[in-house]
C-alpha cells in the first residue's frame, strides 16, 4: 500500500517526488511520530488504548528544556525527562490494571491533567534552548551523509521494539494479555505488571519523541504534541495492528508512520489544497483497516 501511495505522489508531482530532498525531509520529521507509534503498537496489542501520550511528550520535553537550559547537563535533563514520561505511563497503567478503570477514560483524563500541568508550570510560555552546535545535537539530530540521525535512531528503536515484542518474554506477555487476559493470568502472567510496564514504555517513548522534537525545533512550545494523537493512531492502524488486541505489527507501524507522515507533504506537492489531507488520510485508514480485516478473516 505504501508503494502505491508513493507511486501516486510520483505520478501527480514528479518534480518533487523524483528528487531526494523530500525523502530526507520525511526522514527528519517522521521519527517523532514513529517512535510514539511504536509505543502505541504495544498498547493496542495489549487490547488497551492511550490518549495521553501527546501531553506526556509536551510535559517531558518541557522538563528537558528547562533543566538543560538551567544546568547545561544533558544527562540530568534526559533522565528527568524520560523519568517523567515513565511515571505518567506507570500511573496510567496502575489505574487501568489495579483499579480497573477503562484505559480510554483514564488516559483521556490524563491527557488533560498532564497538558494542564505543563501549561501551569510553563505559564504557557515557549522555552527557547540553544541546542544547535552541541554534541548531543550532533548525536541525536545531526546528519550522516545527509541522512538525519533521528531516522537512524528510529530504525534502531524499531528493531529493538521488534525483538522486545516478538522475542522477549515481556512482549509475548503483552500479546497474550491482549488476546486472552484470563488465559494469560491462569498461566501465571502478572497481568497488572505487564500493563503497568507497557504504559510506562509508552510514556518513556513519548518523552523520547519529545526530546527529538525539541532538538529538531530548538524551541519548546506549550502546544507540543497537539495534532499527533490521530496521526499516530492512523499510522498504527494502517500498519496492521488490530484494535482488538493480541496482534501487532512493529514493521507495519514503521511503514505506516512514513505513509501518514508523508501524506500532508504529498498532497500539497500534488497541487491539492491542504483540506484534502484529512479526507485522503481518512480514506487511506478505512481502506487499510478493511484490507487487514479481510486478510485476518482469510487466515
Amino acid at each position: 500500500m505504501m508503494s502505491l501511495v508513493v507511486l501516486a505522489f510520483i505520478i501527480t508531482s514528479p518534480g518533487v517526488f523524483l528528487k531526494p530532498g523530500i525523502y530526507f525531509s520525511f526522514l527528519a520529521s517522521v521519527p517523532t511520530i514513529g517512535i510514539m507509534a511504536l509505543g502505541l503498537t504495544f498498547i493496542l496489542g495489549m487490547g488497551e488504548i492511550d490518549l495521553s501520550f501527546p501531553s506526556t511528550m509536551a510535559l517531558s520535553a518541557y522538563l528537558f528544556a528547562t533543566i538543560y537550559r538551567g544546568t547545561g547537563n544533558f544527562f540530568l535533563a534526559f533522565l528527568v525527562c524520560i523519568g517523567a514520561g515513565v511515571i505518567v505511563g506507570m500511573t496510567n497503567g496502575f489505574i487501568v490494571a489495579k483499579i480497573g478503570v477503562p484505559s480510554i477514560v483514564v488516559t483521556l483524563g490524563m491527557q488533560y491533567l498532564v497538558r494542564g500541568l505543563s501549561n501551569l508550570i510553563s505559564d504557557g510560555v515557549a522555552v527557547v534552548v540553544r541546542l544547535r552546535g552541541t554534541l548531543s545535537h550532533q548525536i541525536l539530530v545531526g546528519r550522516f551523509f545527509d541522512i538525519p540521525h533521528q531516522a537512524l535512531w528510529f530504525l534502531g528503536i524499531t528493531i529493538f521494539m521488534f525483538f522486545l515484542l516478538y522475542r522477549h518474554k515481556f512482549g509475548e506477555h503483552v500479546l497474550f494479555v491482549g488476546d486472552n487476559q484470563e488465559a494469560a493470568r491462569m498461566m501465571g502472567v502478572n497481568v497488572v505488571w505487564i500493563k503497568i510496564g507497557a504504559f510506562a514504555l509508552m510514556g518513556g517513548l513519548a518523552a523520547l519523541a519529545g526530546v527529538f522534537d525539541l532538538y529538531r525545533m530548538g524551541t519548546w512550545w506549550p502546544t507540543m504534541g497537539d495534532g499527533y494523537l490521530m496521526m499516530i493512531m492512523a499510522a498504527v492502524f494502517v500498519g496492521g495492528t488490530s484494535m482488538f488486541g493480541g496482534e501487532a505489527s512493529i514493521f507495519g507501524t514503521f511503514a505506516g508512520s512514513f505513509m501518514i507522515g508523508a501524506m500532508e507533504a504529498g498532497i500539497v506537492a500534488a497541487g491539492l489544497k491542504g483540506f484534502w489531507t484529512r479526507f485522503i488520510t481518512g480514506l487511506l485508514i478505512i481502506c487499510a483497516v478493511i484490507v487487514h480485516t479481510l486478510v485476518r478473516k482469510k487466515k
Partner: protein
Amino acid sequence: MNIVEMKDIHKSFGGVKALKGVDFHIGPNEVIGLLGDNGAGKSTLIKIISGVHTFDSGEMYIKGRKISPRRHNVKAAHKMGIETVFQEKALAEKQQLWRNIFLGRQITNKLGFIKVSQEVKETNRIMRELMKFRGIGAGADSFVRTLSGGERQGVAISRAMYFDSDLVILDEPTVALSLQEVKKVLDFILALKERGKSCVYISHSIASVYPVSDRFVAIDRGEVVAEYKREEISLEELNEELIKLTQAKIF
C-alpha cells in the same frame, strides 16, 4: 502421601460464602470427578488449589507442605507440579502453538529473550509424542484458532504432561465438544493416569466423567455433600444419587 490435602477451607467473596469448611484430598495417581451445579463452589475450590484465589481460613497441604494463602499463586502451583486447564481460558487463539505451550515458562537467555528455535523444536516433539497430532496439518507455528475444541484441550493437557505436572485439573474440558472430540479428551486423561499422574475432572456430564474417574466428589452450596468410589457405584446409581441431592436442594 496425598498430592493435595484441604481441611476446613473457607472462602467468601464480599458477603457471599463460596466455600464453607470444605475437606478435600487428591491421592497419588488418582482421577477425581468433581461434580456439582453451577455456583456450587467447584471452580472456587480448584482455583484455590491452582493459586488463582487464596483461601480465608483452613489448612491446605501440597505434597505434605503446608501452604500459606498469602504466598500461593499460579507460579508457585506450577513449581509444585499443579497445572490447571480452564475451559475457554486455556489458550490464546491469536498466538502460535509454541508460544501457548511455553507461556509463563519460556526458554530464555539471561536477558529474558526467548530461544525461539528451541521452543519450536520442543513443541514439535510434544505434538508428535504427547498430542499424537498427525495428519491434521497443524504444526508448532499454527495458530490456536485453527484447531478444533478437542485439539485445544489436547494441547493444554499435553502442556501439563510436558512440564511433568503431578496433578492436572481440568475445568469443564468437554463443554461444546462433539462425541469424537470428547473421546480425545478422555484419552488424554487416561494417558495422564497411565503416566502415574493425578487428575481432577470437573464436568456437568456424569457420563463422560464416570469411565475415567476413580472417585467422585459432589459439592453443593460450598460444601462437600457426597463422595463415592467408582467400584462402589454404577453410572445409573451415581446419576440417581445426584438427582436426589439436587431434589433435596430444590425442596
